[in-house]
């Protein structure tokens, strides 16, 4: 269920990216009337206040916005294809892409032509220059900005044909397995950002007439596919498709977002610098370099922005959802609106710094209003986005919303923190192996195990410090990386030193500032029993006092879940009793507590439940009594002439050993063993039988696991 949840979250982020790419297109076109040095006629208007800045900014967005769109389209393409099947996929794409292309063109082309004519006439001072002829290219057709729909349809055809072929040839899926590995490896290294741009670089290098500013020349003049655009956007689509195939590509993209973005920015800086020196490509090294670095810039931005969105925008937001829904309509309809306003303001005696924001503001206002009233509640919204939204909001709960919170994982008695099917490796060492542990509301779970058993790894997963290789980690019903979840936790770690210059009181004050409803500093100090030395610098405290100060920092936020990693190490008896008391008080307030410890009496004194971890697995879990019952073993000790080896083979004996004076036997059937002992050795003395303590139970279990 949580996998579905996290898959849905990813879709929110990717939807946001697609919406962003489309809205960026509006900003891009709105800048085109301000391009310095463009001859009249290329765009609807030549503004009287040109801007080098807007020219550069438009170039930068132009590097990646369409590749970004096609990349996401590829991802969603495969998702949809596998959800619907081939036939329904084609029908769906026909409705959502082909119909808007045809209807959109029929409606928009006359409007665009009209505005262009008006604008160019205005630029030429009222007289209309002779209309330029259609460019003499094969298949010439003015696709306008709707070319991307046409291109998308072509790519769908090619990719589905390719997929059918691969499915037929590669029946064992070996080839596809290799491709998946290559995708992961290229993102892991990360070399994808350097290699994905190579095909389009080759196509760009071969262009005989190439203004660097154009980037990938827009294929809006012809129905015949153009090589650079088909190569560049085809690669983007295909890679998006393969990323959807891959198990871990998306998480790699998420993790590498910053590296990719930095590479994109650096490459973009170089492109801008080079383009300023010479805007028109001349055959030679610079052109080759420009084409290749263009690829790095495009993919740096595409992977960087996608990763950043996955990292930061994965939660559901009603506003983002609305904007993402609106973006398709807005992009389809924007061109005549934007161009009309550009023509309108073109001769105003104002700086571009005023006019450009004005154009954006008015355009977006018109486009969003038209979406809200004419599209969202009508059949157009149904056509473009697959569903109609009623104009009046339904009563709460009438429609299932993706915003609905995750299932009540924090309900009374339910788990507040879970590790499910977790595997975590560090190099060749498997720290945790398919482990399942949960902490229920209001309980104290003691995690026991020898050093290196995986206890601290489990805690680190819950704290969001590391990510699992497989499995799901939940904390308070969400992901531990989310700040909102972490506000509910308190933590005391091993091997942490606090700043020695600060006083204990100041450390508590600082930690309290991270929480929504912390205890007052005085109350925290009192609860942790450190009021006496609260004003001494941390560096001057004894080892035990330092642990107590760290305990105070852990509890100051009134935590719902408290993680205590070996909290009482180095404390004297009094301090330990005080800390136990404080822990019990927190639990009485409903706080759930996870405690790792080596002191077994600590677990016996405090724990509701015990989980024994050894070699990366939970080998036993239950209440302290359960644990004893599970082992159901008793310790028999006596002075006897029998040897341990003789006794070990008896029925009901689990283990036997001989220490300096006594024979020690661990038995499941104590009565039977005692009877036989007395029968076998008439001289037997000092017989003692007792229930095994947790200590023995724990030792037995971990030994068996080893």
């Amino acid at each position, binding site marked *: 269920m949580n996998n579905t949840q996290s898959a849905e979250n990813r879709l929110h982020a990717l939807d946001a990216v697609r919406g962003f790419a489309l809205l960026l297109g509006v900003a891009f076109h709105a800048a085109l009337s301000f391009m310095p040095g463009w001859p009249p006629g290329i765009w609807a208007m030549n503004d009287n206040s040109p801007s080098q800045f807007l020219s550069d900014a438009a170039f930068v967005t132009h590097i990646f916005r369409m590749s970004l769109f096609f990349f996401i389209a590829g991802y969603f393409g495969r998702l949809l294809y596998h959800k619907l099947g081939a036939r329904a996929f084609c029908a769906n794409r026909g409705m959502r892409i082909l119909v808007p292309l045809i209807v959109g063109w029929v409606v928009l082309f006359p409007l665009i032509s009209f505005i262009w004519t008006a604008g160019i006439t205005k630029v030429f001072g009222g007289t209309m220059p002779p209309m330029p002829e259609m460019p003499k290219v094969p298949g010439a057709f003015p696709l306008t900005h709707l070319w991307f729909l046409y291109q998308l349809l072509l790519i769908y055809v090619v990719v589905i044909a390719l997929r059918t072929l691969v499915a037929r040839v590669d029946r064992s899926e070996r080839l596809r397995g290799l491709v998946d590995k290559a995708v992961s490896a290229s993102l892991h290294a990360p070399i994808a950002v350097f290699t994905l741009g190579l095909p389009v670089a080759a196509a760009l290098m071969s262009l005989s007439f190439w203004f660097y500013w154009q980037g990938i020349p827009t294929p809006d003049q012809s129905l015949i596919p153009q090589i650079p655009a088909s190569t560049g956007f085809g690669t983007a689509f295909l890679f998006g498709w393969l990323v959807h195939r891959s198990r871990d590509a998306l998480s790699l993209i998420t*993790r590498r977002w*910053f*590296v990719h973005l*930095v590479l994109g*920015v*650096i490459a973009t*800086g170089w492109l801008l610098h080079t383009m300023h020196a010479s805007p028109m490509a001349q055959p030679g090294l610079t052109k080759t370099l420009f084409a290749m670095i263009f690829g790095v810039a495009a993919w740096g931005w595409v992977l960087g922005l996608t990763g950043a969105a996955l990292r930061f925008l994965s939660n559901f937001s009603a506003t983002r959802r609305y904007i993402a829904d609106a973006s398709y309509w807005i992009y389809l309809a924007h061109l005549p609106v934007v161009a009309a306003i550009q023509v309108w303001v073109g001769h105003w005696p104002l700086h571009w710094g005023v006019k450009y924001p004005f154009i954006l503001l008015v355009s977006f206002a018109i486009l969003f209003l038209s979406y809200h009233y004419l599209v969202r509640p009508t059949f157009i919204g149904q056509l473009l986005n697959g569903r109609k939204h009623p104009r009046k909001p339904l009563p709460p709960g009438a429609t299932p919303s993706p915003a609905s919170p995750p299932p009540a994982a924090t309900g009374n008695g339910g788990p507040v923190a879970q590790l499910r099917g977790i595997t975590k490796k560090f190099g060749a060492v498997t720290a945790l192996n398919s482990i399942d542990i949960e902490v229920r509301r209001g309980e104290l779970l003691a995690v026991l195990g020898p050093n290196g058993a995986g206890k601290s790894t489990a805690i680190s997963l819950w*704290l*969001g*410090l590391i990510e699992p290789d497989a499995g799901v980690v939940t904390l308070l019903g969400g992901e531990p990386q989310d*700040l909102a979840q*972490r*506000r509910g*936790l308190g*933590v005391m*770690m091993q*091997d*942490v*030193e*606090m*700043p020695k*210059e*600060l006083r204990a009181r*100041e450390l508590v*004050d*600082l*930690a309290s*500032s*991270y*929480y*929504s409803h*912390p205890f007052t500093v005085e109350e925290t100090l009192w609860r942790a029993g450190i009021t006496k030395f609260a004003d001494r*610098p941390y560096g001057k405290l004894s080892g035990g006092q330092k642990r107590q100060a760290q305990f105070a920092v852990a509890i100051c*936020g009134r935590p719902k879940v408290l993680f205590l990693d070996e909290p009482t190490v180095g404390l004297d008896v009094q301090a330990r009793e005080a800390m136990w008391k404080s822990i019990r008080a927190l639990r009485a307030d409903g706080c759930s507590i996870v405690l790792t410890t080596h002191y077994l009496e600590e677990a016996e004194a405090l724990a509701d439940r015990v989980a024994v971890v050894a070699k990366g697995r939970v080998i036993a879990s239950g209440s302290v009594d359960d644990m004893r019952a599970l082992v159901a073993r008793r310790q028999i000790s006596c002075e006897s002439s029998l040897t341990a080896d003789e006794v070990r083979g008896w029925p009901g004996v689990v283990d036997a050993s001989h220490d300096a004076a006594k024979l020690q036997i661990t038995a499941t059937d104590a009565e039977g063993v005692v009877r036989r002992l007395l029968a076998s050795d008439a001289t037997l003395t000092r017989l003692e039988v007792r229930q095994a303590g947790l200590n023995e139970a724990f030792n037995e279990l971990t030994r068996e696991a080893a």
Partner: protein
Amino acid sequence: MNALALKSIVADSSGSGRAMGAYFTETKYELTRMIRNPNVAVPVLLLPCGLYALFALLIAGEAIDKDPNLGIFLFAAFSIMAVTMPALFGTGVTLALERDMGLLRLKRAQPAPPAAWVVAKIVSGLVLAVLAYIPILVLALATGKLTLGTGQVAALSAALMVGTIPFCAMGLMVGSLASGTAAPAYANLIYLPGCYLSGMFFPLPTSMYWQTPIWPQFHVEQFAMHLAGIAKYQFEPLQMAIASMLGYTVLFAGVTIWRLKHKG
């Protein structure tokens, strides 16, 4: 409004108010720590001022009286040293120590706003930079070794403050890469050559001009010269200086983030 009132508002509000409160508290204690730790504060605050007094007043005093440009040159050099050293060492060494202490791991586990400690370190670096810069400025103005208009002094000072940011980022990078004991050594290793090879302290032969843009100090100085309008010492366009400072900041910050993410 007193601090108590401010605090209660911060405690009662949610969302952005709380985050602001965390940033404020983090910064307050970061500064408290720096000021209570004389090992960092003393050399960083006194060294540049002492060196400026030695060179600009005692050694080159007369030469400056003949050529006021020399005074500006030396003032800029030692001021850059004064503001960049706390930025670099203050952030870098403390970060490296905190990583050794496991404190950064604890902060990542706590619900601290992810950028709070970074902002706290940068702000503290800036405050220390101001504290190191003011004595030099006072000394230069009082002895008449800096002959600039008030507006120029203000612009130069502002430029120097902005110029600390790449060095804060450099400090964070060093702190994220090196251990607590090695961090000062590494910081010196990348900082000191730049002071000389950027041409900040003495004019370089023409044959060495090509390598000056490698050093962040060079761009900070150029930025300051542009803002103060001192044409004689402008060797690269303003945009280039800004772009380079920005580039270095992004680069260093990127390495830091990468490193902290992968190694902690």
